[in-house]
């Protein structure tokens, strides 16, 4: 921010803005000084808060991640990248990472298309009850994740839950079904709940996007002989492209940070089969007093999100804005 340097002759080849900044203190320059001082002044509180509560802790956990540290006492057992190597060598960490990737992929191919179809059904007030269903589908999103986790524990309860109840309709004997206690099925049982909660949220995003699409456009396409499927794929989807880009972004980042529901429904168990990166961080960092190692996991999660974010901003969001 070198807006004034005495005796410095402003360069003439600079672009407009820079040129303006470099001007010596004329009446106009004085105004610009005041302007920048004001900006600095107004930005300072937010900047200080952001640095203290976001940037510094991130740097701090980056520093902790290089040590073996119990969270108590001095940092004196330097490990270098040892914690990171240990993480990638750990089978359970790889399960957690794999689970996260699975959640991302299946969210993208199941959750978002479903949310989009619901949005198509209820966005226009064509059908009676569309407002009611809008509220109904959105309802799970309003509840806290931890509450949802506890409610679904009851729904899946092996002795008196819904799956057991349904099984009674088909078999004479009461067959008990314990989804959350099954290492193969628990993941999918939880995945259903995650979809159930977030479909409403993505649906609202799409509805908002759809409201920006003029109905005349659809009508015109129909008059031109487009089928309903063609309208969806050639009119609606291109029109709400930006909404889809945001929805996909939120879905992926959210999947990597998934914690509460998984925790409430089984703490990453049985036998680590539903572990996500964040439950892994909690189980192996906090619970075991391994804060150095936990920090390393946090750094890995941070890097995954950061790299993805940069990539997405540059190639997807950037492309869309061209």
């Amino acid at each position, binding site marked *: 921010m070198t807006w004034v340097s005495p005796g410095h002759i402003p360069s003439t080849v600079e672009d407009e803005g820079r040129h303006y900044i470099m001007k010596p203190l004329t009446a106009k320059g004085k105004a610009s000084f005041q302007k920048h001082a004001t900006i600095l002044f107004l930005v300072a509180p937010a900047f200080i808060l952001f640095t203290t509560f976001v940037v510094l802790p991130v740097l701090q956990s980056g520093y902790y991640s290089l040590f073996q540290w119990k969270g108590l006492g001095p940092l004196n057992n330097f490990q270098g990248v040892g914690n990171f190597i240990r993480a990638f060598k750990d089978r359970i960490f790889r399960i957690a990472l794999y689970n996260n990737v699975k959640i991302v992929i299946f969210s993208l191919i199941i959750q978002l298309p479903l949310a989009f179809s619901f949005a198509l059904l209820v966005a226009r007030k064509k059908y009676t009850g569309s407002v009611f269903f809008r509220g109904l589908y959105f309802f799970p999103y309003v509840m806290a994740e931890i509450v949802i986790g506890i409610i679904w524990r009851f729904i899946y309860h092996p002795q008196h839950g819904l799956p057991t109840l349904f099984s009674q309709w088909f078999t004479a004997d009461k067959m008990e079904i*314990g989804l*959350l*206690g099954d290492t193969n099925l628990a993941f999918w049982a939880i995945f259903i709940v995650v979809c159930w909660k977030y479909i409403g949220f993505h649906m609202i995003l799409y509805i908002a996007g759809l409201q920006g699409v003029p109905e005349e456009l659809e009508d015109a396409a129909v008059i031109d002989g487009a089928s309903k499927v063609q309208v969806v794929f050639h009119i609606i989807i291109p029109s709400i492209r930006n909404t889809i880009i945001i929805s996909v972004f939120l879905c992926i980042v959210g999947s990597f940070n998934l914690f509460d529901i998984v925790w409430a429904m089984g703490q990453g168990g049985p036998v680590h089969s539903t572990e996500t990166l964040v439950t892994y961080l909690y189980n192996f960092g906090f619970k075991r007093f391994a804060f150095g190692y936990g920090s390393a996991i946090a750094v890995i999660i941070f890097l995954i999100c950061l790299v993805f974010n940069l990539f997405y901003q540059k190639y997807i969001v950037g492309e869309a804005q061209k």
Partner: protein
Amino acid sequence: MKKLGIMVMTGLLLLILSAVFFAGCAKEDKEEVTEQDKVTITWWALSAGGGDESRERLRLKVIEDFEAQNPNVEVELTMLENEAFKQKIQVAVQAGAPPDLFHSWGGGVMVEYAEAGQLRDITGFVKSDLSKIVGIGALGVYGYDGKYYGSPYDMGAVGMWYNKAIFEEIGASVPKTWPELLAVIKKAKAAGYIPIALGGGDKWPAHFWWVYLAMRIGGQDAFNAAYGGSGSFKDPTFVKAGEMLLELAALEPFQTGFLGATYDDQAALMGNGKAAMELMGQWAPATEASNSDTGDGIGDDLGWFSFPAVPGGTGKNTDVMGGGNGYVVGKDAPDETLDLLKFFLQKEYNIELIDVEGIIPVAKGAEEALEGTLNSVIAEAVAGAGYYQLYYDQFLPPAVGEAVKDAVVALLAGQASPAQAAAMVDDAWQMEK
């Protein structure tokens, strides 16, 4: 000029804010000066959760009595729910500001705090005062390396709780040995009951089984060898414990979906009379009652027996695994904290705690109040134990405790062999040592 105005306004605002801030600080300073001779003790205790305030009421009464006798002392009580406490205390200790008196289960976590210099060494006071009130064996759980950091107010045992009505119906008697237990399980299963309720999702109820088997097979020597370094958790005792647990699991004695069940689910199955047995600590009757449909559990039908013997095992049937609740003293605690601890441990309050928290009292003479209750059987077991083992998940360092729980659940899920499970524990232990 308008911008200048904004700047001036912002500046003023900041000034006012900082003035308020510093005024706040100044006010606090002032208070400290006027009440300089007043000692404040911070006390963190566990609440029962679910809006039950009986524990808080009792402690407030203790504080009132204590403050009446010590007018210069003010006690600030904070009641926290179990899980919330575990998280908050970790943060407080890491920040170097532990409360003066706070809840602890002793063992590994306490040792971590002590080694970091966050606890006050009260060895002198324990030897001169507390040992006259509380048995030295129970105090030992709150000691380490010859030093003491606190005292228990509750010290119980884990054992088999069983439904007498179901046992009668299936014609079973209390099993004394492992094969007898397996026979009872088969009978109960044939009669349509859940032989054993288990909250495998919470993991710690499952680890009791493995630890007790190891205790009965190898006794104190096996554990001491592994703990002391002359042996390891890969020793035959711990592998055998896994094998015998699989022998049990092969009978499918647990409820469907037990790997995803919580301890509350387990307690509900017992409290509603659906399950015949559970392996649990002294708090089981209270938890069963509060999780049952009627709110009363199975009442007089509930019985207790100690974990059965393993034929050929060197562990004695009187060896007990258990633990309890207690308080440790934070590093900066004033001397009055010790008086408060001693005051809290007196017989009268310890007896009241039997009703309020379902404890097994530790204060000398308080056990008389148990007479005629099931808890007296547990108190006898604790008193008669030649070898008293604190639960592994509390006794061992947290990383190893977690590994034990994970290993036992993996074993029960069929995802680890007995040898692999033992190796999981040993790997964590060798890393931590």
